[in-house]
């Protein structure tokens, strides 16, 4: 009887621990092996055959296709530079320059990776659409209310993710720091 009880106990604990760890790793987990620059993180290895098993499982679960490394690299930001979660009810200023790339695109998604509906029907910018200052740097205002200049509407959703994709770029697995790859700063402004 103790044997039977022990086995049942062990199996239940094993199932809970095993499945729980998988669930946490795939939903909450931030995959390792990323390149972090400021608030931005990219996983260039996910666009190669060397993708790790956790990232493979995550990709299979969400149904997305990672950007191939010969194509480009995608940087994700879910927080501003001070670590505060990006809130669509607040103004956020994205400013600076981007790493060397033939083209880049900036897109706003909800946390599930869906585009966000808004009155301006704008979900992002390409490097060619952006209005720049004389020195080549730019500012993008991300917020719920219409603004002059480069305004990226949030649709007032609670949490969002910004994705900056660089195409035809030397940035990749060998990139270590923001000096090699200067990413735009993300700073929070006033809230509704």
């Amino acid at each position, binding site marked *: 009887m103790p044997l039977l009880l022990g086995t049942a106990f062990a199996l239940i604990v094993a199932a809970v621990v095993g499945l729980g760890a998988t669930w946490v790793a795939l939903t909450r987990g931030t995959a390792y092996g990323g390149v972090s620059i400021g608030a931005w993180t990219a996983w260039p290895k996910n666009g190669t055959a060397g993708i790790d098993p956790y990232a493979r499982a995550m990709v299979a679960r969400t*149904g997305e296709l990672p950007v191939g*490394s010969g194509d480009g690299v995608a940087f994700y930001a879910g927080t501003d530079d001070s670590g505060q979660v990006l809130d669509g009810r607040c103004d956020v200023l994205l400013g600076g320059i981007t790493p060397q790339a033939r083209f880049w695109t900036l897109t706003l998604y909800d946390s599930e990776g869906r585009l966000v509906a808004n009155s301006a029907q704008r979900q992002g910018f390409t490097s060619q659409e952006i209005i720049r200052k004389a020195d080549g740097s730019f500012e993008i205002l991300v917020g719920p209310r219409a603004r002059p200049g480069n305004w990226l509407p949030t649709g007032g959703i609670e949490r969002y993710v910004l994705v900056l994709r660089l195409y035809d770029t030397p940035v990749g697995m060998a990139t270590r720091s923001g000096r090699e790859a200067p990413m735009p700063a993300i700073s929070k402004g006033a809230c509704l």
Partner: protein
Amino acid sequence: MIRVLLWLLGAVLLGGIVHLATVLLIPVMASQDAFARLSAFAPVNTVVAIPAPTPEKALMPFMDPAFVTSICRYDLSRGPLKLSVPISQAYTSVSFYTRSDVAYYAINDRAAGRRVIELDLMTAAQRADLPENEEITAADRLIVASPTTTGLIVIRALVPEPGWISAARNALAAAQCRPQ
């Protein structure tokens, strides 16, 4: 007491095995991964345009809305495939994914260095079967070896400004993937 701790230790070890097994099995078992989503949509060995993502509807999460996209779901079991993609004005890329969504190869228009990205896709076995001299005469022919018999080719053209969309669409409309 010690017996309970031993059982617990065994249980946690077993839990670790369960964890690793599920992580490794999810890509194999997934029924809603990108390949499955696109398979429902795309016939085999044909280039089809897929709709651009909108807030209401997107085939996959985190699609870049600045691109027009076509895909070719390939099956090499009957032989190699020839792919040709005319490049658009701005930026064109071709990415290859295995049956389990691993991006094993990607090339862009500049790396291809021509007006048309042309390449042959085959399995490692089919490549080994190529006659040697043919490989020499076709030295400038780009050959991509697929790790799996089936997979996805994703062809994308950037629309840097809204006005460029028809040019990008036209370039991709002329893309072809067909058995040799």
